[in-house]
């Protein structure tokens, strides 16, 4: 059993050279069979396993990870959490997620540095303002917080923004104060530790290379560490969803695309909250460590390469400097890339598949991180009960066929435009 984390245990350990800490999670050998298998040891997979154990009493659960846990998008994102969505199918889900974030650290006894510093979406013209108002009102109707800031209020918050020489002057912003940032790696580790303590087997370096089926549906998975049987298998494989699903003969409304992200050198506090720039696609926040964490659009072409090219790097810096001209002399320290499971309407899928017992959690585009707890919560519910959770009812796989799409920005069936 893992040691409980608190200031007291930390003090105690500091007096004896920290020799008493137990590993945060075990490193078990896979058993021959499990009640539930979750494929993918990222944030969503680990959260799913945790809630399967915690909410549904499942004790015989395995998470299979082809590399190391937290090595995918949960460790590569820009750490933003928010529930400032527009579409009816999305708001309740993301609000559920935000509420889970709010109590997560005490629940899993791991400080993920959840920081509700606020998320501010800037708008630059009348039509963007109207869209922000439409969205803010949709949030209010759902009981979700949101405030409309005028230009002067934004200026007070962001005195270093360009108000005097901007090509697209800032007109105001929609602020969600409960939004913010989270220490992303800690989410994976915290869920892993909490799941492990409830008996979940987290099996790293175990790649799924086949999905075995019989007349009753799914039977188990072939892995690099042998066959593991289970009648309930959930896929939470983010950018690799199509690859894993193809093992079961499924073809999905998903393309894998590359998103780059960036961090600056460490700086004393400069950017007070999460800010999105409306005259392009740019978002920025500052980590507790002092680095500015920022990003922009995906690289636009299908990719599994986890690294991008210069045009997006330059575009993102252009937008950063256009928004905050003082960033010009701030240096970009590192860039990286993650593979996004871009769906055809920009919204996720948490649903059954055509194969009985095989479930799908995918299509998170580049919004998956903020969804982590609710995604795990709802996917666990689906795996345990075979029924969609109330707040994830809209995330059906058949909506692409029926036309009940959840297209937040109206881009249509072009994954790279969402």
């Amino acid at each position, binding site marked *: 059993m893992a040691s409980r984390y608190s200031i007291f245990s930390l003090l105690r350990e500091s007096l004896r050279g920290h020799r008493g800490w137990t590993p945060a999670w075990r490193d078990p050998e896979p058993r021959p069979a499990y009640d539930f298998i979750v494929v993918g040891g990222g944030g969503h997979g680990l959260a799913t396993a945790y809630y399967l154990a915690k909410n549904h009493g499942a004790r015989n659960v395995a998470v299979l990870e082809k590399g190391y846990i937290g090595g995918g998008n949960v460790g590569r994102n820009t750490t933003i959490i928010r529930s400032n969505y527009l579409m009816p199918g999305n708001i309740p889900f993301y609000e559920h997620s935000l509420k889970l974030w709010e109590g997560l650290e005490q629940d899993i006894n791991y400080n993920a540095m959840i920081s509700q510093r606020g998320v501010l979406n800037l708008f630059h013209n009348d039509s963007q303002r109207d869209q922000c108002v439409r969205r803010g009102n949709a949030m209010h109707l759902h009981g979700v917080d949101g405030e409309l800031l005028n230009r002067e209020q934004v200026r007070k918050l962001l005195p270093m923004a360009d108000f005097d020489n901007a090509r697209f002057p800032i007109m105001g912003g929609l602020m969600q104060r409960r939004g913010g940032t989270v220490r992303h790696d800690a989410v994976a580790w915290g869920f892993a530790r909490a799941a492990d303590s409830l008996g979940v087997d987290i099996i790293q370096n175990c790649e799924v290379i086949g999905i075995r089926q019989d007349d009753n549906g799914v039977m188990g998975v072939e892995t690099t560490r042998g066959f593991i049987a289970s009648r309930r298998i959930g896929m939470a494989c983010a950018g690799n969803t199509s690859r894993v699903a*193809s093992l079961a003969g499924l073809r*999905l409304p998903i*393309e894998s695309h590359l998103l780059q992200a960036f961090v600056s050198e460490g700086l004393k506090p400069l950017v007070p909250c999460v800010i999105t720039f409306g005259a392009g696609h740019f978002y920025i926040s500052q980590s507790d460590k002092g680095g500015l964490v920022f990003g922009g659009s995906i690289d636009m*072409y299908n990719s*599994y390469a986890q690294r991008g090219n210069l045009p997006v790097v330059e575009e993102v810096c252009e937008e950063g400097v256009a928004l905050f001209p003082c960033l010009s002399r701030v240096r970009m320290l590192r860039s990286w890339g993650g593979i996004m499971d871009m769906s*055809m309407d920009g919204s996720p899928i948490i649903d059954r598949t055509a194969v009985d017992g095989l479930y799908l959690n995918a299509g998170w585009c580049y919004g998956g991180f903020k969804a982590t707890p609710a995604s795990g919560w709802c996917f666990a519910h689906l795996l345990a009960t075979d029924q969609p959770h109330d707040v994830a009812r809209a995330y059906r796989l058949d909506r692409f066929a029926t036309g009940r799409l959840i297209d937040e920005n109206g881009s249509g*069936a072009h994954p790279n435009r969402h």
Partner: protein
Amino acid sequence: MRIPCPHCGPRTHEEFTYYGDATVRRPSSSSPDAVAAFYDYVYTRDNPFGLHRELWFHQGGCHEWLVVERDTRNHAIKGAVPARDVFKAGESK
């Protein structure tokens, strides 16, 4: 990335607009299963881990749609041909 445009030579990919999978074919609108066929055509993708044939438009050049063959694992481009040549030939995937 540099795309070898058959008309303009190797050009940086910023000059191009990406569209996506070039292997899907628009079904007949009059067939009885047209809705299902169009669903597949519009929404589902192989999304291969490896060679991908994809459409790019040379917006900053010759205004030609190209079918580019590119490896999604490492972005290595095998070649590019005008889309009209591919589609005129009635070539299927």
